[in-house]
């Protein structure tokens, strides 16, 4: 009998101990947020890795040296689910830097971000540093939520100057000349285009192709309406742009297994097709950031201007000229305190911009950043293109709400496989778009 009562006592003790541990854990969870937010540390989340990350860390190191505030940088390649789950758990980062104004706007409308205007980012402050295009990208419903920290031109086509010299090719200025160049390469027995757009994560290279063609054939006004959800994707202008797109992106002109090959290849291996040590293709279409990746990761023997260079996207419909399609990343604040304010302020200074661009990985949207800060002629040319663009349009797929941009990329993957089905694919996609807009 005595033994049994001991056992009961033991069981009670174990049970109570466990319950109190669980409760302690729960209450710790509740107080954990203010604890990690102790003065002097800012948690920053972004999808940057590789050269962009190391460039950004140089910027934050300079900030820490100046102010003593530490930056805890976190890379989340899949930033959408990372931010969503942390937000739902009540533990968002202090600052997030995201490349999609559309997603930023979705979260801002849900009330996730702090308005930056009362934090010192007044219209006058912004006007002195950014063109109105960049400010409006971060503005939702009259409030400022996003601060542009990085920019890229996506309206460039990469080529090999030495090969152009060898065959006496000229840089194409119009779509007809681009097609002629494509055919001329083919006639020399070379496959003209490299492309990496698959299987899942690299589908955005196709959305960039589409955007450049669409802005040049349908014009900036329709471009705005299409990506704002006000024009249907079944519109004739969309189908026309897809037709032009597949007149280059097809089995005849894509190296290494044609369309299917491209769908099995990532964006970076696509660069390798053109600029790698064992290159098989001649031309590559993607943004200014290709230069940094090609020089650093793909082939260190490349010589800017001699074996690698880019030309601006040619015009298609003369009256729409050559609008610049660009991308960029915006910083937004989930929380507000003095440290976060001074960090965001710092990001918008020319000093931060100069460190940022000196790495050759990115260009700065800040107009106070001097062009002499750019380390090589490729990025300098890109910065000049962005600064001098008469018409600037932000990457449309990144303006789409939530993750619709990924669905759009998947739809374009289907189009290049079956150009004849474009109409059906677009009407299916429109159904998805209707739900999202």
């Amino acid at each position, binding site marked *: 009998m005595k033994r*049994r009562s001991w*056992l*009961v006592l033991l*069981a*009670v003790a*174990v*049970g109570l101990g*466990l*319950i109190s541990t*669980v409760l302690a854990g729960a209450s710790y969870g509740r107080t954990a947020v203010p604890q990690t937010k102790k003065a002097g540390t800012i948690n920053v989340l972004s999808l940057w890795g590789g050269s962009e990350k190391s460039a950004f860390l140089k910027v934050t190191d300079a900030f820490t040296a100046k102010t003593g505030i530490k930056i805890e940088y976190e890379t989340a390649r*899949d930033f*959408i*689910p990372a931010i*969503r*789950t942390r*937000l*739902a758990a009540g533990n968002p980062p202090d600052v997030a830097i995201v490349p999609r104004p559309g997603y930023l706007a*979705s*979260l801002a409308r*849900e009330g*996730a971000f702090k308005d930056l205007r009362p934090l010192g980012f007044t219209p006058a402050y912004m006007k002195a540093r950014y063109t109105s295009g960049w400010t409006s990208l971060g503005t939702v419903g009259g409030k400022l939520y996003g601060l542009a920290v990085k920019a890229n031109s996506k309206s460039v086509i990469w080529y090999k100057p030495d090969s152009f010299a060898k065959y006496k090719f000229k840089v194409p200025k119009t779509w007809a000349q681009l097609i002629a160049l494509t055919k001329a390469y083919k006639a020399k027995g070379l496959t003209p285009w490299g492309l990496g757009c*698959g*299987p*899942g*994560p690299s*589908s955005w290279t196709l959305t960039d192709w589409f955007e450049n063609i669409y802005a040049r054939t349908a014009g900036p006004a329709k471009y705005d309406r299409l990506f704002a959800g006000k024009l249907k994707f079944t519109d004739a202008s969309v189908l026309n742009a897809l037709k032009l797109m597949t007149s280059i992106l097809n089995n005849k002109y894509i190296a*290494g*297994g044609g369309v*299917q*090959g*491209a*769908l*099995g*290849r990532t964006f970076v*291996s696509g660069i*390798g*097709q053109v600029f790698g040590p*064992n290159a098989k293709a001649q031309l590559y279409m993607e943004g200014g950031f290709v230069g940094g990746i090609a020089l650093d990761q793909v082939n260190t023997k490349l010589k800017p201007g001699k074996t690698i260079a880019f030309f601006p996207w040619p015009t298609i419909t003369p009256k729409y000229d050559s609008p610049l399609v660009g991308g960029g990343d915006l910083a937004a604040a989930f929380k507000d305190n003095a440290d976060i304010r001074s960090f965001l302020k710092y990001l918008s200074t020319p000093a931060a911009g100069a460190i940022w661009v000196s790495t050759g990985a990115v260009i700065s949207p800040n107009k106070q950043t001097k062009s002499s800060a750019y380390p090589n002629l490729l990025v300098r040319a890109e910065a000049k293109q962005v600064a001098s663009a008469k018409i600037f349009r932000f990457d449309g797929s990144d303006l789409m709400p*939530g*993750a619709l941009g*990924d669905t759009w990329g*998947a*739809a374009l*993957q*289907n189009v290049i*496989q079956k150009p004849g089905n474009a109409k059906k694919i677009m009407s*299916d996609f429109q159904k998805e778009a209707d739900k*999202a807009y």
Partner: protein
Amino acid sequence: MSQPPLPTPVLEPQEPPRGLGTFRAGERLQGLFFIAPALVVLGIFLVYPAYYTVRLAFYQGDFLYRFSNFLGLDNFKELLTDDPSFLDLSSFPPSGALVNNFRWVIFYIALSLAFGLGLAVLAVRVRYERVVKSIIFVPMAISATAVGLIWLFVYSPDLDNGILNAVIHGVDHGFDPIAWVGRPSTVNYALIFAYVWASTGFVMVVLSAAIKGIPTEIIEASRVDGAGEWAIFRRIMVPMLSLPIAVVTVWLFINVIKVFDIIYVMTGGGPGTSSRVIAYTMYKETFENGRGGYGAAVAVLMLLLVLPVMVLNVRRFRSERVTT
């Protein structure tokens, strides 16, 4: 090699199990306290989330995954009738994540079992059995992320790093490289094969242990009776291994219904949506598209698919002795 069979223990007649009512209050309390730790942990990490998910499936849900905007069965209706990336019966053959998962069930289980059983039977006969088995087991110890990256290289359409294409090209020079994960027609099989590669080792180890449990007398007796090797395999080994095979099949089934990691790493559900499966759809809808309710509906469907097999398995564990 194998030990003489243990004499089957004669079961002592036991007193009939007592119902809960026959325990005294003190005993009941004591029992409760002893299972309390497990109950609390299971309650917090299993029962509550499951309840939350099932309930959320009937709501639209907002960006914080709260219960907002009750929809009834609308999520399920949309999922099964109006979401071509999940189930598309309008064309033949039908496509979508559900159909892909069905493919996975058939080919993944069949191939894993065939390779696992084959290797288990053959490994017993080679001299360096342990070494051979360890090598085949190694992929099991590699994380799915690494498995995915390895096979992305294997399947690459560029001959420089795509081993598979390079090998075929080496044999037949006129061969045009195939982007195995870039084609909707091959991508699912390419993924399945990579996963089979990673699971075969486990199946082999379990079945090979079971083979060692088969009394040698039976095999020897059948040899004396004139049975060939194939007959021994077909008529003696396979029937005697039926229980471990069933257990492994259930394990493979549950594994395949929730397959996610390798698809996430290798294709992201692409090209297009052609390699999505149920679990990937759930992730995509919940965490990328922020449609908590819809994603929860996918999860509930997944649970419903696994449940019968789980029940079957638990019953078997209760009724039979598992000889693995």
